[in-house]
């Protein structure tokens, strides 16, 4: 880390030193708010006020075609419609939950498996690690989603490959059964980011534990179940929270794979895509605001639930070592 030498500040005359402690505290308090001011303005203007505004809008029939002041208060109608009269809404919920429940565990399993393969000192390990990580950097882009869409189309690369074995594949992205798994596969493909975190966690597991277990005749499976998993549980937990929240918010790949429709037959209609369409295509922003608030409450609840179950299975062993 290059460190530039710090220039000494100009010397302070002795007379000014008296009562300096109090003055310093006052100055530091003032400076704190000066430095914090951009963030405070952002918190207020870009986050807090819009949040409250969207809560208000969720009780109105606001549309960008009319001024906010002319929209009508319709009470709980948006919420009622969402829960009882909009089959697409529940469909989007089902798609999103399925996506998160399937893709997140598979992604974490792939990440852990490859991390364990990589957790050995051998040549070229950092090149492997970097290349496995590459999809995580590129995968969220429109460009990769476009490639995915072509690869899994009727005459795409996947089917050409399968035809070598005499298998006639589906038009994956155009098939209501297979479109969502295709989307999941794109998410799982980006297992590099959690893998890197697992790898860092694996490095922290003391080798002596494995040696002792081997001496006691523990099988590789028992060593995995009784040493690796418990020792890694804080990292598994961290990845699980991060990937779950991330999984619920998938938008780009679903948008590109379905060309913005969430199709075929709404099979890839992720919650955020439904929200976008409600707000910016149907221009029903009051309704979309209600969807956004339910989304916020659900994600908050899931986070709280994850954290409260974490107490039962996350094992922090090294508290005294730190």
């Amino acid at each position, binding site marked *: 880390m290059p*460190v530039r030498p710090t220039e000494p500040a100009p*010397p302070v005359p002795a007379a000014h030193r008296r009562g300096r402690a109090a003055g310093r505290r006052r100055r530091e308090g003032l400076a704190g708010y000066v430095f914090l001011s951009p963030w405070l303005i952002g918190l207020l203007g870009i986050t807090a006020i819009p949040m409250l505004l969207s809560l208000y809008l969720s009780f109105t029939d606001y549309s960008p075609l009319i001024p906010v002041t002319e929209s009508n208060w319709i009470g709980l109608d948006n919420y009622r419609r969402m829960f009882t009269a909009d089959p697409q809404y529940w469909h989007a919920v089902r798609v999103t939950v399925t996506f998160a429940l399937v893709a997140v565990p598979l992604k974490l399993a792939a990440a852990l498996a490859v991390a364990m393969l990589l957790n050995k000192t051998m040549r070229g390990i950092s090149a*492997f690690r970097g290349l496995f990580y590459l999809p995580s950097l590129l995968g969220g*882009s429109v460009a*990769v989603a476009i*490639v995915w869409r072509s690869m899994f189309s009727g005459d795409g690369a996947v089917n050409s490959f399968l035809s070598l074995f005499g298998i006639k594949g589906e038009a994956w992205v155009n098939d209501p059964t297979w479109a969502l798994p295709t989307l999941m596969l794109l998410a799982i493909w980006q297992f590099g980011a959690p893998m890197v975190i697992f790898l860092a966690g694996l490095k922290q597991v003391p080798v002596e534990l494995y040696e002792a277990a081997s001496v006691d005749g523990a099988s590789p499976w028992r060593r995995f179940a009784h040493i690796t998993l418990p020792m890694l549980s804080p990292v598994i937990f961290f990845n699980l929270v991060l990937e779950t929240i991330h999984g619920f918010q998938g*938008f780009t790949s679903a948008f590109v794979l379905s060309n913005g429709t969430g199709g075929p037959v709404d099979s890839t209609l992720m919650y955020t895509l439904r929200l976008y369409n409600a707000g910016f295509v149907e221009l029903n922003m009051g309704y979309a605001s209600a969807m956004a608030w339910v989304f916020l409450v659900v994600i908050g609840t899931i986070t709280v639930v994850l954290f409260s179950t974490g107490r039962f299975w996350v094992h922090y062993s090294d508290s005294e070592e730190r």
Partner: protein
Amino acid sequence: MRSKVRLLALIVILAIVLYPLVWMVGTSFKSQQEIASNIGLFPREFTPGNFADGWHKFDFAFGRFFVNSAMVAILTVVGNTLSCLLAAYALGRLKFRGRGVWFAIMIGTLLLPGHVLIIPQYILFRTLGWVGGDWPYLPLLVPHFLATEAFFVFLMVQFMRGIPRELDEAAVIDGASPFGVFRHVVLPLSRPALVTTAIFSFIWTWNDFFRQLVYLSDLKDYTAPVALTLFIDSTSESSVGPMFAMSLLSLVPVFLFFVAFQRLLVEGINTSGLKG
């Protein structure tokens, strides 16, 4: 023996993982007939024409979309590094009334999904007259100049907590004000965190789609990701090669960052949440 099996497994998995990317590169050099007939990774006949076709496919050259993307990304980098640095210094190094509360709120916004705010923000920016118009990028940029990307604030707070307090105290004894400490101690020592923030700001903004899709409605203002979706709309078979060529080009900047800063990218951000 076992290490051979391990290596073989890694190579097979890596081949599967990298296949889509390599296939993308190969396909962008294939001619129209070859895309349908040749399933191999590499073109039999090298066809660079896809790049020219894709470049001039729309009313504006694709270069314009790349310039727009680069401008948004670079200004976002400036905004994020500056504003998050200031906020992180206040939250991580200074003592003042209310700091604990503000820090807790900052952590709270860390998990706030951006999709929740997009509609009221859109209404706000539209009311301010920032949506549409000659230069529709203000809604994309202004939030980044106000440190709304809490992740980077958190990253820098964590980093600054690792800078020895004695340095601050020594500077204060020398008569430095909080601004002096910031300028002469914390700023120079925070360079690694600034570099990480800058690189990730660039990559994330370059790849970002949701916000750009919402705010950019005029073809001349499109960024590369938004322009790429136009290829999907034109369903004609002849556009597959050019679509791949432009998709490939749009990944080049991120790939270059990957090559140049591999270690920092792989380690810098992923494990930052674990430390401290």
